[in-house]
């Protein structure tokens, strides 16, 4: 998958999990930009990303994420 395709996939997951189709993600988007993206929904987002992309994130990776671009870095690395 290209970075653009990963971004589109992540955005699709955000739409479904946060039940808001109008969310537009960019690589710079942070939790502060998306009101529905809270501690609680984050766990749900991670679980759906992991199951649909067949990957597993580590705690250290998740703690280092500052924005959506850094989530995409992790996914890109895992998908090889």
């Amino acid at each position, binding site marked *: 998958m290209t970075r653009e395709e990963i971004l589109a996939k992540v955005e699709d997951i955000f739409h479904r999990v946060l039940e808001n189709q109008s969310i537009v993600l960019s690589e710079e988007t942070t939790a502060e930009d998306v009101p529905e993206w*809270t501690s609680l929904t984050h766990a*749900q987002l991670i679980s759906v990303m992991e199951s649909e992309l067949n990957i597993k994130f580590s705690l250290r990776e998740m703690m280092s994420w500052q924005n959506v671009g850094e989530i995409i870095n992790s996914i890109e690395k895992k998908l090889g």
Partner: protein
Amino acid sequence: MNFFENILNPVRKSIANFSDRNAFYIDGTFYSYKQFAERVSAIRGVIRAAEKNEQIWGLSLHDDLNTYASIFALWMEGKAYVPLHPSWPEERIASIKQQVGCSNVLDACDAPYTGDLLDDWAEASEDDLAYILFTSGSTGVPKGVQLTRRNIAAFMDSFWKTGIDITPEDRCMQVFDLTFDVSVQSYLVALTRGACVYTVPYGQVKYLYAASLIQEQGITFGAMAPSMLTYLRPYFEEFDASSMKACILTAEACPVDLMEAWYGCAKNTEIYDFYGPTEATIYCTYYKLKRGGENLSLNGIISIGKPLANVQAIIIREDGNLVEGQEKGELCVAGDQVTPGYWKNEEKNSSSFFVRDGVRYYHTGDLCYWHESGNIMYSGRIDQQAKIQGFRVELGEIEHHARTFYKNERRVIAIAFQNAQNLTEIALFVEAQAEDTKPLIEYLRTQMPAYMIPTRILFEPTFPLNKSEKVDRNALKQKLN
């Protein structure tokens, strides 16, 4: 024991003795006690210069040094604050300001520092308010819990008598929203002992930021809600919390198996379960867990332990008489930590407080009983008790079995509701994507009598939370309509 001796003077001593040490770590920046003191002095100047000399000030909450400094500036001026959260709807903020009658608001006050104002103390009585916390009211109008200087001083005195010790070397975590009173404990224990407060900035995924503070900054003490640990639990194997010497779990019922799992990464940590309604100032009972030992629990939930030093507790029947033996009843608390009452709300005050043998008690609404060891066992809210076909049903027990079915990996909430025929039924909410409910029901049937089996099972991907970050049972109940 008073507000000056237990709060203000210890903070002044921290400033005097540790001026170059760190008082705060906020969003990646350290601030020394000297910087903190300068902000307190600057904001005191603003309060003194206000056109209207009001006793209660609004405080717009931000995760910044000025917000914390504003709290102490107001207290040193003998005033109280009412927290106003920028994310609240304007109507709610207006309603609170109108109820309290305050027009002055400190909002990220960055007035310049012009001189030290730390050795000048305003006259104040112990009965003067320190803060008012507004919580949602059943009528839709927020209700304000008033906490006095006496309440906070008594709380602090109680807290140190639990044996938890904080030194200037400690790194203390503050993860709670400032509208929630555990935040007050979180910053007070650090600042009164010259330690550093590490905050979680707004807009962060809280449990991940807290985990990174623990691992990367070597946090030594902190209070957390069990739900934060629930989210971290899948990662416990790779999580090193060995820097923590003490950890308080609070704000919601504390599952015993979660605590035992938490010991695996909090290898050097004393774990405490603290319980308390805002009305009794932050906490009123506590239980210290034993590592590798037998911990008292009921339906998988840790005991809430024994009353704090300045709290008297009784458990009463519906008729107001004391329970006998291990009979369940309502926990009621008294003492210097108990609020003088709700702000201008006579109706609520007359129903929430009562006098017995000359002592004024607060009805906690929590169903408890005395264990033979003298610890209090928590059995849920009184309004979580339902009568089904004449049988008394404790919703906590249904939740316990459902949690066990899900191997403690999912949150569940049981709610009693009236159906169209005005009969009581039980609904069970499961925090998960929808799935076949047959295996769950079959399991529950092996554990409970037929009348206790929920008649409706609903799946919610994420449970709604209230401002105190507890599962919002009312919001779930509304989904049943």
